[in-house]
Structures are given as structure tokens and as C-alpha cells.
């Protein structure tokens, strides 16, 4: 029987009294890759942020269960330590904090056991090799002066090191060239078999490299259509208008 990782039920979310999500339902099991597509402003990034526990969002109705437990009251760092990971659409720039220091502190925080220097370095080197990253990145400040592609690779590097049980990827493919897209997809595919994955994207092209099990379409803060990979291809060809027309009808 499939192991449930995430269950979102009738989720209503507001920001400063403005409703963003209006009754979301979504279940992700271990090993499943779910893709959410939709126009700008549909609520996709809000969904990822709320699942990760961003304090700016208020859940007005419904619930989020992770590994069978209601996590509404869990803070963001507790969620991270429980195995949840969000690859940010716009990762924060942190001047003065070196990438190497940041990665070590993150991994130390998330893992229960003490971090052994040599083993961590070996693991780090392996993950960086997978993502074809230069070691010089470790002495740079976190996302400071990084190109869009470098930021997204650093997000995926963190994901590989933190080994999440639930990976939320918010437009990780945006701004990537063809080679970078392939490399980032490799990172996602290496984590996916042992985790539940939720990928937010605007484009079919990532799905040439990452095979989703389910594709969902969000309109006005709720899922209006779900299907398999063929739904993404249909959206690429026909856009969202046919779904909006159906929703209005």
C-alpha cells in the first residue's frame, strides 16, 4: 500500500484578509511526482509556501497533514527538520554567509546525528559533482551575485544534502538553459524515488527530463483538473482557456 507523505484537505488560505487558496485538496504518496501548473496568480507558490509554513499566510479553513500528522502548528524549522524541503522560486541573498558554512549548518540542523567532517565533505563533493558545480562556490556568499541558474543549482544541491521526504520545487526550472535544466532534473530524479515531490512549473520542457505521475491545473486557488503527463502536453498546445471556460460553465 502506498505510503502517504502529504495530505492537503479543503485548504483555504488568506494573506491580509485576501483569499488566495479556496479549497485545495491534494495527496502525495512516497515515490510520486506531482506537477502543478497554472497561470500567474493562480496560487501555486502560495500553496508551496503554506505547506512549508511561511508565517505570512493564514490558514482560515482546512488542514495539512504530513506523514499522518497535522502540521498547522509546526514552525518552518520544525517542518524542515521533519524532512520537508522547499526549493524557492526566489532564494534569499545572504551577504557575508559563505555557502560552505551555510550548507554545513543546514545539514547539522536537519540530521539528528553529529556531522562528521570527512564524511560530509565526501557527500558534498559527490552532490556537487552530480550537479556539475565548481568547488569555488563554497566560499562565495549565499546567492550573492549568483546568476539565476546558479541559484537554482544551489537549491538543488541543498535538496540532495538534506535528503527530504517531501520536496516542494517552486519554478526551479525558470531561467535555466538547456544544460542546466538537464542537470537540475538529474538532481530531482535522484531524490524522487524515496520522497514525495511537488513540482510547480509553467513549462512542459522540465517534464521531458522528469516523468510526473500526476499533473494538476490550478485556477483561482483550487485544482480544477488533474491527469497524467498528457495533460501537460495538452496545456502546452492549448493553454488554459479551455479549462477556464469549463470552470465558468
Amino acid at each position, binding site marked *: 500500500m502506498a505510503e502517504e507523505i502529504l495530505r492537503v484537505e479543503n485548504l483555504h488560505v488568506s494573506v491580509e484578509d485576501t483569499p488566495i487558496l479556496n479549497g485545495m485538496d491534494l495527496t502525495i504518496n512516497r515515490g510520486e511526482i506531482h506537477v502543478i501548473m497554472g497561470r500567474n496568480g493562480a496560487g501555486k507558490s502560495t500553496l508551496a509556501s503554506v505547506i512549508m509554513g511561511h508565517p505570512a499566510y493564514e490558514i482560515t479553513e482546512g488542514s495539512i497533514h504530513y506523514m499522518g500528522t497535522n502540521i498547522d502548528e509546526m514552525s518552518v524549522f520544525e517542518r524542515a527538520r521533519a524532512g520537508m524541503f*522547499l526549493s*524557492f522560486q526566489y532564494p*534569499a541573498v545572504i551577504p557575508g554567509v559563505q555557502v560552505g558554512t551555510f550548507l554545513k549548518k543546514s545539514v547539522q540542523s536537519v540530521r539528528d546525528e553529529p556531522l562528521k567532517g570527512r564524511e560530509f565533505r565526501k557527500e558534498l563533493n559527490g552532490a556537487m559533482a552530480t550537479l556539475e558545480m565548481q568547488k569555488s562556490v563554497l566560499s562565495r*556568499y549565499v546567492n550573492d551575485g549568483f546568476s539565476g541558474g546558479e541559484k537554482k543549482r544551489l537549491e538543488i544541491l541543498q535538496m540532495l544534502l538534506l535528503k527530504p521526504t517531501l520536496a516542494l520545487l517552486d519554478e526551479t526550472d525558470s531561467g535555466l538553459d538547456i544544460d542546466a535544466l538537464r542537470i537540475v532534473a538529474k538532481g530531482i530524479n535522484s531524490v524522487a524515488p524515496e520522497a514525495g515531490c511537488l513540482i510547480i512549473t509553467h513549462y512542459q520542457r522540465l517534464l521531458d527530463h522528469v516523468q510526473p505521475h500526476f499533473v494538476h491545473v490550478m485556477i483561482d486557488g483550487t485544482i480544477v483538473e488533474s491527469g497524467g503527463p498528457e495533460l501537460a502536453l495538452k496545456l502546452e498546445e492549448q493553454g488554459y482557456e479551455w479549462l477556464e471556460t469549463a470552470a465558468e460553465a
Partner: protein
Amino acid sequence: MKYADMAVPSRALHLWRYTPWARIHPSKVEDVPDASGIRFNIVEGGELVEGAPRIVNAEDIGRVFLSELGGSAWTYESTSNADVVHLQAVASGHVAVGHLHLSLKHDVTVMLHLSGESDWTGLHITGEIGANARAGFGLVNELASNGKFLHCEDWVVNRDASLELAGLSIGGFRCKSDVRTHFTASGGALTQAISVHGSGQRHVDHHIEVHHDVPHTDSSLNIHAACDDQSHSIATGLLTIAEHANHCDAGQVFKNLLLSEKARAEAIPELEVLADEVAAAHGAASAPVNPDQLHYLMSRGLDEESAVALLVEGFMQDGFSSLDNQTLVDEMRTRLTVHLECELKR
């Protein structure tokens, strides 16, 4: 001029607005107390020679006072390129005073670690950078947390010389620093980077003057102050570019990170530009912890306290980003990391 003949400076003056002379003086303002000498030791590289050129024509009350207090006086003169010199200065007793003169005619880096339990510490550093030399000087103030500290520096940068100054202010209860640099000939460059950590009721006042008296000279100043609890950081800058000192490029940036509601920070850059063809800029910003940065770190498993600590460390480390001298940067980073780790354990 003698100290006894000097009037207590008015608080209307830029230099004494936030830390009046009476608050930094070791006792009553009319007194010139007995002082013991700061002990200077060479930890690595170079040699110290006793004695230092006395300050003449000083009109600033702080410099005159330090001169009359006496204390120890030493000179370091560079002898070859690529020297790295580590000096240790220890202040003990009720009032401890020292004067260090640096004659840097080569590509050298001098690090000074100041520590000790003195109730009142006075330090005067004078230095001259020889033509074409590329020198670095770093001061780490690790004095005990309950003492007063008066600190003056006077630098002269000669033709085509460059000076990088780094300061890490983590010690002392009430600190007043007054750092002045003059360019004597064209081609000189100055890069100054100072990071301040305020905790408890610490009061740290930096006054930085850079005088572009000649054309084709460049300077930059970055001060980063992270203030917690009820601490108070003040940074006043005076940047002057003399008439006919064209083609100078000068800038001052003051950044403050406020970590509690009662922490305060003032940043007052001041420009006096009398030449036409120059680039001169200044900026100041004070802000609490950035919520997006905090959320990002917490989303990677750091609890709020650890995330804020890392942001503070990063903010202070970033204060040294403008320096090219890697020896200075590494030393400052190491001392800062050790200091913040000790603070966390308290």
C-alpha cells in the same frame, strides 16, 4: 597646546555630539591621571623599537590628552615585502596608555590584538605608508567588557601607496574611536572596513575622517554595526576633497543591523567637496533582521536563534568584503567567529 589650556569640546561639534568628552574621560575632565603603559609584544614577524615620534601641533583634545598621559611608545618599521606581523597589546591597571607608530614602506600586513582588564585604555596609532607600498593594518579590540576605550589613529598615505584598514570592535563598554587619514600625493588609495558588535549597554562611537588634499586619490569606507540589547553604535564620517583635488573617488557606506527594540544606531556621513571633477558618494541604512533571509535559513532547519546568529555573523563579515588583503580578511573573520560563538554560549 596643553590639555590644561583646552576647553571641554562642545556637544554642538560633530565629533563630540554622541560621546561627550566627560563621558570618555577616565575621571574628572580637569584631571590628567597617572597612567601605566600598554604592553606591546610581537607575536609573529618583525621587531619593535622603543619610542615613537611624539604628536606635535595636535589640536584635538583626545590626542593631546593621550600625549600628556604618556604610557608606552613603540615603533615598528617594515624591512621587507610580504611581511605579516602579529602584535599583541595588553592594557592593565586603572589607566593604561600606549602609542604605536608604524612606518610601512613595503607590502606588509600588521595585525594588532588589543586585550586586557584596564578600567580605561587609551591607544594612539600613527602610521605612514611609503611611496608605492601596499600596506594593511587590522585592529581587533577585545578589551574586557567593562572598560572605557579612547582610540585615535592618524595615517599618512604617500604617492601611489595603498592602505587597507580593518577594525573589529567587540570589546570595551564605552568606546570612542577617531581615525584620520591624509593623502600627501596623488595615486594613493585607502580602503577602510569596520565591523562593530553591540550587546548589553555597550556604546561604540566611530569618527572617521578622510582628507583628499591632492588629486587622483581614492578612498572607501564601510562600517557595519550589529546592535543588540540596549547597545548604541554611532558612526560619523567626514570626507573632504580639497579645491583642485580633482579626479578623486571617495565613498562612505554605513549599515546598521538592529537586533532589539532598544538598540540604537546613528550613521552620519558628511561630505565637504570643493573640487569639481570628483566622484563622492555616501549612504546609510539601518534595519532589523530581514524576514526573507530569516525564513530562508529557518526553512533549512535552523531555529530562530541560530538563524539570527548566522545572519549577524554574515552581516559583520560582509563589512570586510571591500578589502583585498586576504590576510586581514581571514584574521577578522576568525576573530569574529570565535567572538560570536562565545557570545552564543553565554
